């Protein structure tokens, strides 16, 4: 089979060459179509829809000027909402964790109690939690329990389930089977296997992701105020309503400081745990 069939070589080469040519033609057609689509969208969405006069007029500079005039008088009213924001994030993360444990149990293929049906329920809950935006969860809970931090906490807790339970479930699925085998051989019950062979393996993932989710929840809680769920976001919304541009800048800076604080804390917490 090693000898090349020389008599048909030219014919086969010609076929391959024409195939290549056709592939090239298809590729260029696709490129051209994509380019046209992008150009057309820019024209319709950006060029036609923008108020170009305003963009290059004096009012833009004037607005920026207004924002740069930081209103420090708001600062004294920011301490309490900032604390609220951090507490909301912390409580919401813990509540999210508690809610995530049963969801992860259902959604981990190797330990799910009722086979495929409970697995599907678990996965559905994870997807639902993640596919709805936190602002939408906020609106739902504000209408359910009224304005205030409780609505924000519930919104974030429910929004956190998706990420926390998914990562826990995946960690459970990726668990090393060797300790499980050893614990079965020792005569462990199913529950003892869960506690001794599975739990120690998922603790690092568990703790790391909790810290990560807390960090994200601080960001979330700063904007959840926009829908009336308390915290710094609510102050931001009020300053906007009053058209106090300098105040808006102050609140945004406060949010920035808070997020950096969250970043620093989670960095050290992760180092300490893992």
């Amino acid at each position: 089979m090693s000898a090349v069939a020389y008599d048909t070589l030219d014919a086969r080469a010609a076929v391959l060459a024409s195939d290549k040519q056709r592939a090239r033609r298809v590729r260029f057609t696709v490129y051209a179509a994509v380019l046209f689509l992008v150009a057309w969208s820019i024209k319709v969405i950006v060029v036609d829809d923008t108020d170009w006069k305003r963009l290059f007029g004096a009012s833009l500079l004037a607005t920026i000027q207004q924002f740069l005039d930081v209103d420090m008088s708001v600062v004294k009213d920011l301490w309490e909402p900032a604390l609220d924001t951090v507490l909301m994030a912390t409580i919401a993360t813990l509540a999210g964790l508690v809610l995530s444990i049963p969801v992860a149990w259902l959604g981990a293929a190797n330990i799910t109690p009722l086979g495929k049906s409970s697995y599907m329920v678990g996965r559905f809950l994870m997807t639902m939690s993640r596919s709805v935006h936190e602002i939408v969860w906020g609106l739902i809970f504000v209408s359910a329990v009224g304005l205030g931090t409780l609505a924000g906490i519930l919104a974030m807790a429910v929004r956190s389930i998706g990420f926390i339970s998914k990562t826990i479930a995946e960690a459970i699925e990726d668990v090393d089977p060797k300790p499980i085998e050893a614990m079965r051989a020792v005569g462990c019950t199913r529950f003892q296997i869960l506690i001794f062979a599975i739990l120690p393996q998922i603790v690092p993932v568990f703790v790391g992701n909790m810290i990560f989710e807390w960090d994200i929840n601080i960001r979330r809680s700063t904007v959840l105020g926009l829908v009336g769920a308390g915290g710094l976001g609510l102050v931001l919304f009020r300053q906007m309503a009053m058209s106090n541009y300098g105040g808006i800048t102050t609140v945004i800076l406060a949010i920035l400081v808070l997020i950096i604080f969250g970043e620093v804390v989670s960095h050290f917490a992760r180092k300490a745990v893992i």
Partner: protein
Amino acid sequence: MQAERVPGAPRAPQAASIAAKPVLQVRNLRAGYGDKEILRDVSFTLNDDDFFAIIGPSGAGKSTLIRCVNRLVDPKGGEVIFDSVDLVKAPQKSLRNLRRNIGMIFQEFNLIERMSVMDNVLSGRLGYMGTLRSVFRLYSKQDIRQALILLDRVGLSEHVNKRVDRLSGGQRQRVGIARALIQNPKMLLVDEPTSALDPKIAREVMGLIREMARERKIPVLCNIHDVDLACAFCTRVIGLQDGVKKFEGPPDKLDKQALHDIYAMEVL
């Protein structure tokens, strides 16, 4: 160490005394998944002073054979009589009680990585403990004392509180040995204990298993692919090939022809 030959007895290994009692009787054991047969009618008897080595090429069914004994793998037929109970027919519920009487040592140690040496050894007692006591790790003083004695015996008394992922391979296998022995087992199953270790450590580990089993009068059933190591430590060899027992006898009977029978490539 006097060889007693009993006429008519199926076998009389050199080290066997008259008092040797069968601990495990395997009769016509069959195992496999679907159409694939892994063990075909394997039979043997393990006495209380035996150290059996199961040798054979990879895929011969060595690992399945010892896992059928403690039902980590469910056999398809035959009998596994241990402690006068047929394990093959034992209901799922009573397996826990049977398993805690059988210690197992693994090829890759199968330790719980993020726990300390002490906690890993004590996990060998979980089969005797209730749910609540085990969740809070309320091991009895007696168990902790026993763990300290065993750790001292395997030479790890300086590493009691270290996490096992900090130990070397040989040290990790010693933890595995201590975990198996704290069960106070009536038999030890050993699955390729040395393939993850270098040759010098491998001999030390085999020696330790043999000594500790002898001290406690526990028989050993050991999978091992290294024939020299098997012959150096065991009292009797079982040769498996493709799920069939091709040889059984003392190591000095394991000649070229026998090895050829066990390791010959099957021609299809």
